[in-house]
């Protein structure tokens, strides 16, 4: 029997068979400005010829699955013959859900998995549990780890001790990649060019130019400088989708520091935006969100846990999720957590090679476990006992 692992994120779905490779696919539908009537699902976005003014239809709202009609259309496409050709009668599924998912959403999920798609068996878990499983698999001597899952909608900090999550330590910061993209979009629109409808383009800009400052004030001083001394400043060439298909950073030699730049291409000149935007992850209060930043929240979470466990958590901080890919993220988390912890504790921050698919890989490992059979709920089980059995078995 095959097992399909689906890390169903709010922005991308990480999907693949446990014996195969993972694909990262946008978990949403798109409408383009040019082909108004057509809806593009998931990775059909590659077919869009002019992705300017691309409109997103997301199944998730604030990180929770609420728009099932969109989600089912995406899943129909993913499970269908174009993509994974799932034989539902012979397949079990591992699917992820956010921490403290609402029970009504969980019940809808059960119904759709078992009754609509008729999977043979299902395992619903938190992405952190899969990441923790992967981590303990690679580091069998460790007892505890704390997963920092910084995704599209929000950031969760979840301590795991021997693959059991410590509920009292879970913290959510309501800052995620979506907020960063939107903020960048807004400040660019106010400062230089109106890009409010260009979420897709600006998201690419964010991924290309943003970084986490190691020393915020030093970089800010550099950003104040004029002309060539300003090493933070970059010119980003925006795509026009006819000759320039994808935006890129202009090589420094070609930058024009005084006077008007050459006509023909649209340029965004970015300086302090490059690091002030990711800074929100570390200081949400800068834009009026009265919450702790990631390093502070890690320390706060660990302090809520029994004292004997604390040193184990400090040396196993695992970063997952798309924001962890920002350059400098790991070093900044390390240096700030280091400053906030007693000197006799070791601090170690681990950034996996691919923080986006880390939990998917954990799911792949879980499906190969001997006790995987005992962890899932089979369709017979569900048909016999309904939601109760899922509620008992799954630790959401």
């Amino acid at each position, binding site marked *: 029997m095959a097992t399909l692992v689906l890390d169903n994120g709010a922005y991308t779905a990480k999907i693949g068979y446990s014996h195969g490779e993972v694909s990262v696919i946008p978990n949403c539908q798109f409408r383009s400005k040019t082909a108004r009537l057509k809806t593009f699902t998931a990775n059909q976005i590659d077919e869009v010829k002019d992705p300017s003014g691309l409109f997103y239809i997301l199944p998730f709202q604030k990180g929770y699955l609420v728009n099932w009609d969109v989600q089912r259309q995406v899943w129909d496409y993913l499970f269908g013959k174009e993509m994974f050709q799932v034989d539902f009668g012979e397949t079990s599924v591992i699917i992820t859900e956010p921490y403290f998912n609402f029970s*009504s959403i969980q019940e809808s999920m059960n119904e759709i998995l078992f009754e609509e798609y008729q999977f043979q068996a299902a395992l619903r878990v938190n992405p952190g549990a899969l990441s923790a499983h992967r981590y303990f698999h690679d580091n069998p001597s460790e007892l505890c780890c704390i997963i920092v899952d910084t995704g599209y909608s929000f950031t969760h900090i979840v301590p795991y001790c021997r693959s059991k999550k410590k509920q009292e330590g879970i913290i959510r910061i309501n800052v995620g990649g979506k907020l960063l993209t939107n903020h960048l979009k807004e*400040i660019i629109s106010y400062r230089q060019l109106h890009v409010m409808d260009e979420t897709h383009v600006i998201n690419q800009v964010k991924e290309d130019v943003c970084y986490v400052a190691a020393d915020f004030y030093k970089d800010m001083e550099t950003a104040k400088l004029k002309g060539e001394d300003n090493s933070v400043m970059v010119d980003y060439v925006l795509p026009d989708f006819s000759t320039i298909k994808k935006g890129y950073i202009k090589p420094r030699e070609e930058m024009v520091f005084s006077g008007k730049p050459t006509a023909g291409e649209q340029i965004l000149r970015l300086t302090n935006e490059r690091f002030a935007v990711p800074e929100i992850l570390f200081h949400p209060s800068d834009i009026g969100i009265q919450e*702790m930043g990631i390093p502070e929240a890690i320390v706060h979470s660990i302090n809520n846990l029994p004292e004997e466990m604390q040193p184990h958590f400090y040396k196993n901080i695992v970063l997952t999720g798309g924001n962890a890919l920002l350059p400098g993220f790991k070093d900044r988390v390390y240096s700030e957590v280091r400053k906030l912890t007693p000197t006799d504790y070791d601090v170690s921050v681990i950034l996996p090679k691919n923080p986006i698919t880390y939990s998917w890989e954990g799911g792949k490992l879980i499906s190969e476990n001997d006790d995987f059979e005992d962890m899932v709920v089979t369709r017979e089980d569900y048909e016999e006992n*309904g939601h109760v059995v899922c509620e008992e078995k799954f630790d959401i």
Partner: protein
Amino acid sequence: MGDSKVQSAEGAATQPETAAKPLPFKQANFLHSGIGGAAAGKKNRTWKNLKQILALERALPWQLNDPSYFNIDAPPSCKPSKKYSDISGLPANYTDPQSKLRFTTIEEFNYIRMLPTDVVTGYLTLRKATSIVS
């Protein structure tokens, strides 16, 4: 999929109208989770929006110290928030008492004073600093 129609809330156990293929495991007082109350038509099913789900969830009998969606928010930071100029994004030492916008240099101040009020409120909402009163 066997849909059950229940008019009132869970407590009142009205006999559900079973669909073409009755499923034996379904409880008599089962209420389809995705469908708000009476709108249980199979064709135009409307899913609860997040606000409704949150209200429903809040009504559950939580214990005071149970971790749940509502109390795992990170507490406020101990560090002071940074002050950027609203115009350039550089660190700002000054605030215009009239518009409450922050600025770094005298040129920016001149610029702020020329801005129409809607742009000023736009800048302020960017950092959630608009006062509800005015």
